[in-house]
């Protein structure tokens, strides 16, 4: 006779609970490019030490939302952001916020690897130097080495740190960009389709890296690859026509989504 109660069985089946602390929160975010509205009342929580994947068809607003999280949209003149976005409870659109400091706390990795036309060493050292994170040359060497190690690139480049970063392969360049983002000790890393220009092996390396980085950072990733979202993220948010359609645990989103639009999109039925 089985003496386990249902509750005991449930506890036994579930692993350790995931962290639920909210790192960043979007509250009724509306974004306009001139007259055209790109995001409609998007409210989304980004949880600490978790990977949140943003998915949806092209033009759905997922990259726009991502770029709001470190005010990258400020660089576009006609773009205006309404609503509230907080980092650790603090409004990042508050005029008192130093945008440069914000972008050090919320780093970004782009679709195409974009190393500076400088040496591998300088690519990493640049950020910490301008942010005054290293007081001595030795400190800087340490930051460069640790960042490259965290990005899983150190062993491949340790003998040619002073060669140009642009001489690396695409996958290595992307990991160099991730190392560069890590070098300024960010809390959140935003990734905009970080693997779309990489081959499957380089993609696997970056995905493995994302999984490791999750321990220390909060990650938000925009991806067009459904399988990638399913593999790397703990939570998934689905966007469509500027609206947040559905947000939930990744496992559920890819096996049993609630919204028909999500269902149609992830199963390849979008008309």
């Amino acid at each position, binding site marked *: 006779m089985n003496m386990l109660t249902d509750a005991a069985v449930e506890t036994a089946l579930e692993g350790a609970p995931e962290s639920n602390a909210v790192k960043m929160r979007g509250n009724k975010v509306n974004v306009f490019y001139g007259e055209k509205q790109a995001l409609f009342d998007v409210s989304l929580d980004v949880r600490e030490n978790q990977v949140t994947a943003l998915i949806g068809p092209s033009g759905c607003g997922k990259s726009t939302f991502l770029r709001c999280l470190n005010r990258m949209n400020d660089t576009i003149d006609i773009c205006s952001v309404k609503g509230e976005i907080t980092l650790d409870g603090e409004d990042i659109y508050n005029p008192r916020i130093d945008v440069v400091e914000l972008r050090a706390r919320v780093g970004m990795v782009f679709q195409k690897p974009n190393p500076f036309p400088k040496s591998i060493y300088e690519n990493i050292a640049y950020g910490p130097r301008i942010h005054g994170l290293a007081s001595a040359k030795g400190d800087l060497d340490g930051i460069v080495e640790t960042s490259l190690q965290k990005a899983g690139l150190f062993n491949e480049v340790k003998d040619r740190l002073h060669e140009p970063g642009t001489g690396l392969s695409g996958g290595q360049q992307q990991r160099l960009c991730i190392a560069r983002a890590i070098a300024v000790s960010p809390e959140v890393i935003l990734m905009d389709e970080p693997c779309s220009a990489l081959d499957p092996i380089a993609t696997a390396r970056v995905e493995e890296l994302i999984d490791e980085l999750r321990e220390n950072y909060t990650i938000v990733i925009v991806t067009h690859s459904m399988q990638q979202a*399913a593999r790397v993220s703990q939570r998934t948010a689905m966007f469509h026509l500027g609206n947040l359609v559905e947000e939930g645990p990744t496992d559920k989103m*890819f*096996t*049993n989504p609630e919204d028909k639009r999500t*269902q149609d999109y*992830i*199963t*390849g*039925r979008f*008309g």
Partner: protein
Amino acid sequence: MAEHIVASFDEDLEHIDRLLRDMGELAGSMTQAATRALLTSDNALAQRVVSDDTIMDAKQTELDERAITLIAKRQPMAQDLRAVVGAIRMASDLERIGDLAKNIAKRVGAVGQSATPRKLSHSIDTMASMVLAQVNAVVDRYVARKAADLMALRDEDEKIDIHYTSVFRELLTYMMEDPRNITACTHLLFCAKNLERVGDHVTNIAENAYYILTGEQLPVQRPKLDETQMTAES
């Protein structure tokens, strides 16, 4: 459900579904034929069941291969993923039903013309028609996408179990009455047990089909009381 952007994806899924329906029909006809062969001592019919099992195995192999290829090629998600994985599991239950029917058919010769088991034919016949109704219903309801009806089907299995217990007791009585009945009755007992197992596979299929259709698992059933076990101990 809207069609896939890639039309051949729909065709692949459709093909797997068709194989599953074929296997369901075959499982039903094999169970029916095996029981009829047993009750009428029809050796030719029994032989047909045995050869049908080869077809069943071949269909399962084909379904498995198609499902695995589809997963590799299309990386299905959500309901498509559930449909493909569910089909693999349902096919394996249907294949087991085929095996159990074959096992019943193989006993036809052994039970032979023995007089006493004839008295039993009514009891086993009733059990067989209950099981058969279940086998036919489970595939029909899956094809018709009737999730709630599938849930009801699982509850029906309880009745088969109760009937099995009464067949068990009846056979035991005949064996005690006259030891010459033991050989035939033991074979019949295995047949009844096989029919009961077919019912269990139908339950599995119903649970899988429910999951495919809804994305939710049916709640775990409470442990059943196996009454034949108690009879054996007393």
